[in-house]
């Protein structure tokens, strides 16, 4: 049995095929139910994790194919320039509000994480690993190395941020009375980077463009804040 499983999974096609199948299933379930909690990304992620854990498929076998999909990640980031370009008029006229919002968001993320970690008695290496979590994966991993956190924890935290924004944006928008599309998009991108942007693009091109912009600007501001963090902790 295990030999058959190994034969089936130990190739380039396996990872690509099950990722495609899981994503397609996720989209279908989302379309059928229309429930925000039935997010295609979340369903596909949990289904793939469950499959790998239950059938005890070695992660390296999955990554043989999935790794080639991962190579497409930079392409998807590059293409975020398109909605930005298409919304350049709004971007220009609201630049001050956008910059102020993202700066406030990044500051809130860093400060609230530090305070909460101290309150809960979390040790410093873990705290540092949680700091670069609201930015996109390549930037977050680059940062965590520079400040001496744990890459694996940062990776989990980044995924957690993406998923939590997608799941909880509706009550947060309602509670804080966020109704302007520019504010919605910037709030989503500053919290949930690319995974949130995928959801934001679904809500509308302006919201999506703003969310995509927030990935870049929040990333830059977080990078700029790092000497300060190093000064405090190291």
């Amino acid at each position, binding site marked *: 049995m295990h030999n058959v499983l190994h034969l089936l999974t130990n190739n380039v096609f396996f990872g690509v095929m099950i990722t495609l199948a899981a994503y397609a299933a996720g989209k279908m379930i989302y379309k059928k139910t229309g429930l925000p909690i039935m997010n295609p990304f979340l369903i596909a992620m949990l289904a793939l994790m469950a499959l790998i854990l239950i059938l005890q498929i070695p992660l390296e076998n999955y990554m043989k194919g999935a790794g080639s999909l991962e190579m497409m990640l930079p392409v998807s980031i590059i293409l975020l320039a*398109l909605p930005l370009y298409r919304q350049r008029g709004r971007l220009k006229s609201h630049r001050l*509000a956008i910059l102020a919002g993202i700066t406030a968001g990044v500051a809130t993320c860093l400060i609230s994480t530090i305070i909460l970690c101290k309150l809960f008695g979390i040790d410093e290496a873990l705290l540092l690993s949680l700091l670069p979590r609201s930015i996109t994966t390549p*930037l977050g991993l680059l940062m965590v190395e520079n400040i001496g956190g744990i890459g694996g*924890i940062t990776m989990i935290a980044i995924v957690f941020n993406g998923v*939590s924004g997608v799941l909880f944006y509706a009550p947060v928008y309602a509670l804080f009375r966020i109704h302007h599309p520019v504010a919605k998009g910037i709030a989503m991108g500053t919290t949930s980077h690319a995974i949130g942007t995928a959801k934001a693009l679904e809500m509308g091109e302006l919201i999506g463009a703003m969310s995509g912009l927030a990935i870049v600007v929040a990333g830059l501001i977080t990078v700029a804040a790092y000497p300060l963090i190093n000064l405090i902790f190291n």
Partner: protein
Amino acid sequence: MIKLIREITLIALLLGAGILIGKIIPFPSSLSSMILLLVLLLTGVLKEDYFSGGISDLILKNLAFFFLPPAVKVIESLGLLEGVWVKLVLIMLISNFLVMGVTGVVVQLFLKAEHEEEADNA
């Protein structure tokens, strides 16, 4: 077909340019490429039409898909969370809730101020 080949070639060139930039300054190559593409579009060197209705829009519509492999890969690190995961989840939930709320509220406050200024000037 020629349009599709041009589109893919341009994306590949942008990727390469980003990697080259990354060798000079320590900045993620994909973000460099994205900023480069935006500048080239704004200056009119590249036309938006080159990327419309092709593979680019298909990828943008399914952005989350390419984030599945790195997300699934975190299962190998889940062991690191043993004993602390409840606390970490709580911390991140509270913090994210504040980040999203504060960001949105600040954007709206500034938008409102801009709007009132415009009304005053009118």
